[in-house]
């Protein structure tokens, strides 16, 4: 997809699309392209059932990427996603083993564990001013250590509660998987927070220039702390949903979500340097990544090929949109 064709198409489109970020448009164009390629490969690719199934798979990534986006908008990054996801899933399942109260508190407890990880990240980044990639790597390692100790190094035996399974696989609205509804709700909340609240404005402000935000009298450290806590909580919630989807938690279940969540946010046009990006773009990025994964697996592309294609696509997209300005 070259930029000129997009420009040409955009010129004939309604105003609200013309004003949209070219990166978001490119992401959506790529989705259309992928659907087209997929339909050549298999007729069923465009069937409603298949698309809904993809949307359901995408919603797990979508929930996790929402938290990642908040952190990236601040110009930071959260590399503790893998074990925040796993900790959320394992702790929710573990709580379920403690009688009816445990079952009732399973989901909040799982999320709480993710928030705790996020708070440690946030304190490190905001108050100790440790680079986010370093402190989040460290908390990721600690979370992993805690989980290994807890589970004894094996996949935990506790299984997901009925509520978790219902959230991940049930249908409250006929025809629409609950996971998709949850993603929609979280997404709507995120859009509301980013566009309508003072907190959202502040996030963009800090991402653009923390110095100016600080001199505007904003308690920037508190905002950063909250953002990391939310990111941790959403990762853990993603883990809870995944555990519900698979009926149980697994050791390395979060590993597969770090790169895709960053990629989804960045491919959706959010600047890795912070301060710029829309949730619509992240939605596009999540769907794009999910479809890419799906097509690669339909084509029986081995894991190796998927990893390579991911990496190359991300670098290529970033070189198009995400470059730092030429210095001097």
């Amino acid at each position, binding site marked *: 997809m070259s930029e000129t064709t997009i420009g040409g198409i955009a010129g004939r489109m309604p105003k609200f699309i013309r004003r949209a970020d070219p990166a978001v448009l490119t992401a959506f164009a790529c989705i259309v392209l992928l659907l087209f390629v997929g339909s050549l490969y298999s007729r069923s690719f465009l069937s409603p059932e298949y698309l809904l199934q993809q949307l359901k798979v995408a919603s797990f990534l979508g929930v996790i990427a929402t938290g990642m986006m908040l952190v990236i908008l601040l110009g930071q990054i959260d590399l503790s996603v893998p074990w925040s996801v796993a900790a959320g899933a394992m702790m929710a399942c573990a709580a379920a083993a403690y009688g009816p109260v445990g079952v009732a508190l399973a989901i909040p407890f799982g999320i709480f564990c993710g928030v705790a990880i996020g708070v440690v990240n946030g304190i490190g980044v905001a108050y100790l001013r440790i680079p986010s990639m370093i402190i989040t790597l460290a908390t990721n390692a600690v979370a992993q250590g805690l989980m290994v100790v807890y589970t004894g190094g094996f996949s935990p035996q506790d299984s997901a509660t009925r509520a978790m399974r219902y959230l991940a696989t049930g249908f409250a609205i006929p025809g629409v998987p609950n996971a998709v509804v949850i993603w929609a709700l979280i997404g709507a909340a995120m859009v509301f927070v980013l566009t309508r609240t003072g907190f959202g404005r502040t996030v963009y402000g800090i991402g653009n220039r923390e110095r100016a935000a600080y001199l505007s009298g904003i308690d920037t450290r508190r905002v950063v702390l909250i953002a990391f806590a939310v990111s941790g909580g959403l990762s853990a919630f993603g883990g809870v949903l995944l555990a519900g989807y698979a009926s149980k938690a697994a050791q390395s279940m979060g590993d597969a979500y770090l790169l895709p969540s960053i990629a989804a946010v960045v491919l959706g046009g959010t600047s890795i340097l912070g301060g710029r990006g829309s949730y619509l773009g992240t939605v596009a990025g999540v769907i794009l990544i999910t479809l890419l994964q799906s097509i690669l697996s339909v084509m029986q592309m081995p894991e190796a090929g998927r*990893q390579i294609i991911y990496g190359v696509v*991300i*670098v290529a997209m970033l070189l198009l949109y995400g470059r730092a300005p030429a210095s001097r």
Partner: protein
Amino acid sequence: MKDWRYWLAEQRGTLLAFGIFIVMFTIYTSNHPAGFTANVVQTASNKGVLLAFVAMAQTLVVITAGIDLSVGMIFLLTNCLASWLVIGTGIETALGVVAVLGTGLLCGAINGAIVIYGRLQPIVTTIATGAVYFGIALLLRPFPGGSVNEDLADAMTGRLFGVVPASLVVLLAVVLVVWVPFSRSVLGRAAYAAGSSEMAAYMSGVPIRRGKFAAYALAGLLAAIGGLFLTFFTYTGEAAYASGNAYTLFSIAAVVLGGVSLFGGKGSAIGAIFGALAFRTIGDLLFVFDFDPLWQPLFQGVILLIAVSLGAFALFRVRNRLEWFL
């Protein structure tokens, strides 16, 4: 007269890491059932040297105020490549070694080119290239396997004169051949200067870009030496995702323990080597004290967390809060 004090101040991080290592290693060997024997030292050095190479690689990039999250994957990729190529006659083996090292150098150079000339953030770039390198490793070795020239492998992992672990000798040789020349070259100084203050370096006409590029490329080379050694120890290649990630993570821990500043411009690969050896020994301490090995990841994670938090103390010296946001 006072020269030695400046030298001491400059090497403080390295010496501290050395001290930690000595203390930890003494505790380790004195509680080890077999005690301080050539065998124990050989095993410990073989394990430690792997991380030491990867930590050296990380040091080079960290000095430029960057970070390389793909070192662990380059390490895996070169391990898998070596399990194909470093085999056969002497000449074939030698060519294989060259090819493996060249691949590492290339991986590092790609990282450097994207970061410096593509102007992308080091962190995202190396996460993405790390995925690519891991993918290639997986292509090479979908399942653990392969083989290596065993004569060479045994020589590299054995003992010289029955006492000195060969792996330590190789580590020393790499320090002398790669690190010392780099750190004393104009490019090495440019890497340090760019990491410390890119603006001042630019004003002084320092070749910033070339210095940084050399650092990234050599980091790839050092990670490849680590990958080669992994093959010598295991005789096989294996694309184990968790292992690659762990090495990346531990390399950061080792670098921090070794007194290298994550903000760039300060530290030495020798410090990082002792940081790596100390980190490994601390991890192994749990075994000699009969702790459940399950506690090892947590223990290592906590050490890492403490290590990265130590740097925050400099924060209390900041008197103008605007300096937080530079």
